[in-house]
């Protein structure tokens, strides 16, 4: 057993202070969401429920049913899953092409990708809207998903290309010897060997899409098509003082992200270190 020195105890106290500052707002939110009829602001902050009996899931029932969060949840699951699957498909194909094949214009296209990465996303949103308008894709999931997938092409190709290049070429030569095609190589060598990188990317794409507000707000206009974050924003506009209801909705938005974080926290922690992931 190691003895704790004063220095170590001091460090723990110092860090615990920050942990408390990071967590207390969430505790406050959870507690309020469990109190029915929390219209009026209390006289003191409710960090923990007063008693076990005081807990009620009324707000969750209301927000899930009356405010149709159940439906929006499914909408979000659909949009995020589709965007993730399509992004993975398009980006892995594209990254393999750039990593292993030579063709005219390869350099130019790749530089265009890198250049677009330097451009802030806001620059495109207005004209993206007009493009979708011309294609009659405003207020459709197709339009929204297309924007999500297209927005990721450059960055994901860049990320995966680097990873694919680390896979030894000798492995592919054996496939060619056996008369296999490029497709066979991509399908049976590159993809299985890149599982960690693909996993990290898929988590990033899914959580990023799940939380995306800006593009969804621009593309989706009808009530029934809303994704969770937009529904959340509009709920906050419409029922500004029903904090219990608002926080119940917030927690529904947060739960999938937290579950993913708890299951895959090593990937999160690794990703934020190694590749210097984009700051969220």
């Amino acid at each position, binding site marked *: 057993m190691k003895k704790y020195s004063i220095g170590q105890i001091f460090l723990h106290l110092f860090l615990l202070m920050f942990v408390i500052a990071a967590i207390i707002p969430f505790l406050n939110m959870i507690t309020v969401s469990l109190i029915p009829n929390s219209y009026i602001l209390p006289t003191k902050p409710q960090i923990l429920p007063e008693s076990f009996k005081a807990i009620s899931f009324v707000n969750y029932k209301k927000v899930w049913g009356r405010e149709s969060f159940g439906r929006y949840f499914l909408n979000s699951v659909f949009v995020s899953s589709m965007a993730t699957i399509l992004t993975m498909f398009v980006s892995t194909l594209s990254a393999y092409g750039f990593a292993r094949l030579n063709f005219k214009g390869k350099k130019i296209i790749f530089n265009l990708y890198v250049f*677009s990465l330097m451009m802030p996303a806001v620059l495109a949103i207005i004209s993206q809207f007009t493009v979708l308008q011309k294609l009659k894709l405003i207020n459709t999931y197709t339009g929204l998903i297309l924007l999500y997938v297209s927005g990721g092409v450059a960055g994901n190709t860049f990320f995966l290309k680097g990873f694919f290049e680390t896979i030894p070429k000798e492995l592919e030569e054996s496939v060619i010897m056996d008369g296999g095609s490029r497709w066979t190589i991509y399908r049976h060598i590159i993809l299985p060997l890149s599982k960690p990188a693909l996993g990290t990317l898929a988590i990033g794409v899914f959580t990023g899409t799940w939380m995306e507000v800006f593009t969804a707000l621009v593309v989706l206009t009808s009530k029934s098509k809303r994704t969770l974050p937009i529904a959340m924003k509009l709920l906050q506009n419409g029922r500004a003082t029903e904090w219990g209801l608002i926080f119940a909705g917030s927690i529904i938005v947060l739960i999938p992200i937290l579950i993913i974080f708890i299951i895959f926290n090593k990937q999160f922690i690794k990703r934020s270190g190694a590749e210097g992931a984009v700051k*969220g």
Partner: protein
Amino acid sequence: MEKAALIKAKNPYPKKKLSKKQREALEAWGFIGVGFLLFVVFMLYPLIKNFIIAFMNYSINPNKPSTFVGLANFKRAFVSGGILEESQKFYLALKNTFLAVLVTVPFQWFIGIIIAIAIDSLRRFKLFYRFMLYIPVISDWLVVAILFKYLFQPTSGSLVNAFLLKLNLISKPIGWFENAGTANIVIWSLCIWKGIGWVMMMYTAALQDLPKSLYEAAMVDGANKKQLFYKITLPLLSSRTYFIIISLIIGAFNILLQVMLITNGGPLGQTDVLLNYMYNKAFTSFDFGYAAAISLIMGSILITISVLQNKITKKTEIEF
């Protein structure tokens, strides 16, 4: 060259008459084609078109033609006067954006690096702290923005007011959203609160990557702990620091949801930032030309920062 290619082309694909090069190019387009098409239609073309829209009085109604107006949109932003006084609002948004960068970046960075060093010097529970302090980072901006609005409610029962009252720092609850100064404090504290964990994670990862051999060599030479920290740890971390600070700056420039949900620019547009201003111009008043001009101004600021970053980091990158 050509001969060699022809000979090779016979084997292993003798059926087709395409050269090996052509065949490879065809295959390559099979792989990159879809991605490239999507990229051109939904990213490249909009980026280019945005440049053009910024110089137009753009109409989204197809029956009403859009007209070229030259630099008028930029003039509206930068030069005061005219029928619709926009430049005052623009400068307010610009000022608040820069203020947000100036305030939030140093705090996030400083607190983040201190925490990272503290965690690195722990003997146990490192992972616990990293995990807990990362929760604000992964949480949805939208949710935490709403949450902060609640924490800063003007009553004495809201978390922040109650805390300050208990410490006797204030005598009566503060109405945080009543004036621009305190409303900005709420927005900034949210940015800092959410950003610290990210800086912490970047630095704890960097600290783990530091080569152990350097420390061993220094210890053999009789360096003490303090010297190790100031002479090895800090200089090696500085190569990451540029990347981290630039990311923080770009993040602070992109403040949108915080403002949109907490104050929506209020009171009277005094806490507005560029992105929220642009968004409202485009999608509330459908003034696309002007909004595109604002986005170009913002884009040029961000590109200048990235270019500067590339120049600076190339000079200071430490290889080990």
